[in-house]
């Protein structure tokens, strides 16, 4: 019997999860390159009660009674719209215009060909361009371009950008990296940043630390190639795409406080309504229990 109570309970659980999502968005109001998450609800599977096959006159629906059982949270998606830009003046703070991302190599221990564990770089994408030079740890004291977590930023050849210590690194609007080593007088073109455009944004997963990637089975190089496009701004005609790398700027979070607060109020009221429904079904059970005075 007690559909109402199950219904309200299940739905409160779903609303709680939506509340968690909103709280996470609000917590990242000031996180560089953060993309807000959004979710929606779906009504839950209906149990269909058979009724006697004879349809009485005046009845409009077929002779079954479909009883719903609440709502669940579904369709958790990233909102990849752009955040606002802030000027920082630091030449290694990079912001992206247009729907592309930087590729970062996340170190992971994998089984090598000789059976020995070795460190490989798994690709992940980010809009957080707060980069810095971080020591590679080799004998020459070389440094590499890395993100705030210390993971290497990859170039068009999917390799870390390693430069001698003491070099000046600058990036132009096309993503070209210029390096001026202490021995050189003029900066020279060193490499180009890898800019990736994901074509199945709905499948992206947040990996934490501002990194996003497809689920592991879609990150296999052959599959990944079909679901992403590499953008090289040095190709003629690329300037029409509206994509650019802005040095000295950072992209803020795309969380809009007003939207989130409105959503919060909405979810909180829905939660209250369901709590009322739960209390009401509890009252009904109490009434049934009091049948014998």
């Amino acid at each position, binding site marked *: 019997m007690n559909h*109402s109570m199950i219904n309200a309970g299940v739905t409160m659980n779903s609303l709680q999860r939506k509340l968690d999502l909103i709280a996470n968005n609000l917590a990242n109001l000031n996180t560089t390159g953060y993309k807000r998450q959004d979710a929606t609800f779906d009504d839950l599977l209906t149990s269909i009660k058979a009724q006697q096959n004879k349809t009485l006159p005046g009845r409009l629906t077929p002779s079954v009674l*479909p009883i719903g059982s609440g709502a669940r949270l579904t369709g958790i998606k990233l909102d990849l719209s752009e955040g606002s830009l802030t000027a920082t003046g630091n030449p290694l703070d990079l912001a992206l215009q247009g729907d592309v991302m930087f590729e970062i190599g996340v170190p992971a221990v994998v089984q090598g060909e000789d059976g020995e564990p070795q460190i490989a770089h798994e690709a992940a994408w980010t809009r957080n361009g707060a980069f810095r030079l971080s020591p590679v740890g080799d004998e020459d004291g070389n440094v590499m371009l890395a993100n705030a977590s210390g993971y290497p930023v990859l170039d068009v050849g999917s390799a870390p950008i390693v430069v001698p210590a003491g070099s000046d690194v600058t990036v132009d609007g096309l993503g070209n990296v210029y390096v001026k080593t202490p021995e050189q007088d003029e900066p020279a073109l060193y490499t180009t940043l890898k800019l990736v455009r994901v074509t199945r944004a709905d499948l992206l997963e947040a990996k934490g630390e501002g990194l996003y990637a497809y689920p592991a089975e879609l990150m296999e190089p052959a599959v990944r190639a079909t679901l992403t496009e590499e953008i090289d701004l040095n190709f003629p005609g690329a300037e029409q795409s509206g994509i650019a790398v802005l040095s000295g700027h950072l992209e803020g979070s795309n969380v809009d406080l007003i939207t989130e607060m409105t959503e919060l109020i909405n979810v909180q009221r829905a939660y209250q309504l369901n709590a009322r429904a739960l209390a009401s079904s509890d009252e009904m059970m109490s009434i*049934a229990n009091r049948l014998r005075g």
Partner: protein
Amino acid sequence: MMRGLYAAASGMIAQQRKHDAATNNIANVNTPGYKAVNTVMRTFPEALIRAIRTGENGRSAPIGRLATGVFAEEYLPLFVQGDVTATGRATDLALVSNIRVDGLAFDAAGRAVTADGETVWQPQAFFAVANADGEVRFTRDGRFAVNEAGEWVTGSGLRLLGVNGQPIRTAIDPADIQITATGLMLDRNTGEPLVGDDGANLQILISVVEQPYSLIREGNGVFYLDNPAGVRPLAADEGAEVKQGYTEKSNVDPLQATVDMMTALRMYEANQQVIQMYDRILERTVNDIGKLF
């Protein structure tokens, strides 16, 4: 014996069903494309009651007609349009459905009366989606995601169908797809129509269900038809259109749902009181009639 005792019990069960429906409406105040349900009650068939051996020549004399209870016969979905809100996502589609039928003027509830006095319900437009078994389902929840194969799927993985009856499959980034009011898919950059695997233009199938009350709710935002004869593709200029970047919100009125819930609770309580009343009468009958001391 005590006929009213059973009538009151059936009343409690029917009010419980009404409460379940109101709770489910409350649970789905935030579910896109959800259609509120109303509970329709019906009295038990009437019976003619006669008094035995009180008429002429000892024959039974009629007392009158009596219906001995009530039951919740059907849950009537309310197919009125939900509010359409902007989300800005290229894969969010809302259907605005106001299908015109020659010679009929529908009221706000989608009802019209013909010259013959017959009540006609307004046909409704739906997206057609296919489940894992390839069966066609109908939905107004247009929050789609594009999976790795390029298919447009609902939150529960049902695939959106095109006018050729096959799932829609797009290769390019969904953000670059523009969808016209008739469901035709265009490349936003070139303005050219997208073509499917069979070489024909990709167009979303919009199905018109002639008698919306013949739809059975399945859960997960979809309905199905036992008899697929009452469905046809949308004709041109019929009064339904696709809006890209919008979703249709639930058409549940939280106030109405709360009032329904409170009414059901109090009616349940009233029926319980009647049962207690009968219990007291029976107690008198058993314990007090013929009591000497």
